[in-house]
């Protein structure tokens, strides 16, 4: 009986600790994803600012050069835009955010921001593009800064909460 209880307790504690670790690592990879996204948007801004490159072309060149989690996202947008199927740029962008970013650690809020950013792309003149891109980049930077400030404390909190919760459940069950 004691053996069973011990095995049970170990299972409960490891799984709840695992949940804690999962949350803390998700938070870290969200920061990584946001940094990656910022890098790509800066590339996009450069292409538009210096070469006046149209969006599909700029997006295609990012998809070709980049090899991370966002490759498929940019590739999807390029492919879809090339079809000229009657959808507007913002519709294609939104569809790509909803379909192609499931394997990243971005939160729903990040995705909503990204969709909103897409709504203003391609619209009006170059100055407006620069403003939109700059605004979005500073938005991501703020988010990264906020997260980085608390990442140590929060990941420690998630880790210890996970273990503590496991111990607590074990005690209650025993």
């Amino acid at each position, binding site marked *: 009986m004691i053996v069973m209880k011990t095995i049970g307790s170990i299972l409960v504690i490891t799984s709840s600790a695992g949940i804690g670790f999962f949350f803390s690592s998700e938070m870290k990879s969200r920061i990584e994803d946001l940094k990656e996204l910022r890098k790509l948007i800066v590339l996009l801004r450069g292409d538009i600012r210096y070469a006046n*490159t*149209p969006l*599909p072309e700029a997006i295609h060149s990012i998809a070709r050069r980049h090899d991370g989690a966002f490759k498929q996202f940019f590739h999807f947008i390029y492919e879809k835009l090339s079809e000229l*199927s009657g959808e507007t740029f913002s519709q294609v962008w939104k569809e790509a955010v909803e379909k192609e970013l499931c394997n990243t650690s971005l939160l729903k809020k990040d995705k909503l921001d990204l969709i909103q950013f897409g709504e203003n792309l*391609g*619209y009006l*003149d*170059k100055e407006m*593009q620069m403003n939109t891109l700059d605004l979005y980049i500073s938005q991501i930077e703020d988010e990264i800064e906020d997260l980085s400030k608390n990442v140590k404390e929060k990941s420690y909190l998630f880790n210890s909460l996970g273990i503590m919760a496991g111990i607590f459940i074990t005690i209650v069950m025993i």
Partner: protein
Amino acid sequence: MNAKEELLKIFSLKLRTILGRLNISFDYLQEIRLRMNAPLLIVYENKEFFVTEDSKLVMDPARALVVNKNEIRETMEYISNYSLYAFEEEIRQGFITINGGHRIGIAGKVIMDNDSIKGMKHISFINVRLAHQVQGCADPVLPYIINKKYGEIYHTLIISPPRCGKTTLLRDLIRQLSNGSVYLKGMSVGVVDERSEIGACYMGTPQNELGIRTDILDCCPKAKGMMILIRSMSPQIIAVDEIGSQEDLEAIDYVIGCGCKLIATVHGSSIEDIKSKPVLCELVRKGLFERYIILSNIKSIGHLDEIYDSRGRRIYPFLEENKEKEDKLL
């Protein structure tokens, strides 16, 4: 992808299907006009037709398909490749050149910034003007602009109203002079293509054949471009389209002074018409051009009407009385 599909790509899905089903030869299609809440119109073989929803050409506007706001918006999105900002300069001038060399004229609400045009919004009128290469169309003109004695060409001005094929003629002249012909060996030609109409460069590659000895300065203002070409590419002939400003005139003086030969085009219907224009009259008065080619579309597009020499004597169609006068003089 052929030229027809390439062109149709710029239209909205619905218009693309309708225009694609039209039973016409795209080689003779001149214009496609889209106006908000107005019938879809095409100019084919110099005649105007309305297009119905089931792709038939009719003369009655009531039966035609009415273009709505969404079609215009979608078409504009495809023309600009989803990126209006990339065509800021072109929009300011009122037209965009697309792959294939076709010129898209646009009109809408103009946004002003002090005294200059900043851009355009609510674009509601689109005119797609199709560019055609007619190889060999310069054949009848070529012998008249060549100075066999010196093995060079005359400074030539092509005068024609819009839609009469002056750019098409210029393009073929450039091609034949650059490649060489039975009359003259090939010469190096510099083209200043301010509106990307002559070479129709798309991402740097000319879409039209301009010959093997041709250098193209794409999207460059004419006056500046002529100077750059002379300094950088040492051309024997310089070709430009639609001259008219004071700046152009100064650059032309420079070109002629450098020993280059010049071929230019201008909007107009006759030499008298050019003489009545403020800047251009100067050109005729100075006698800078040695050949004036006048086109019209009375009989067909690009019909060669008349050719005059620098003293205003008609040399094509050649008049018998002129010949007699010349004989007497000799």
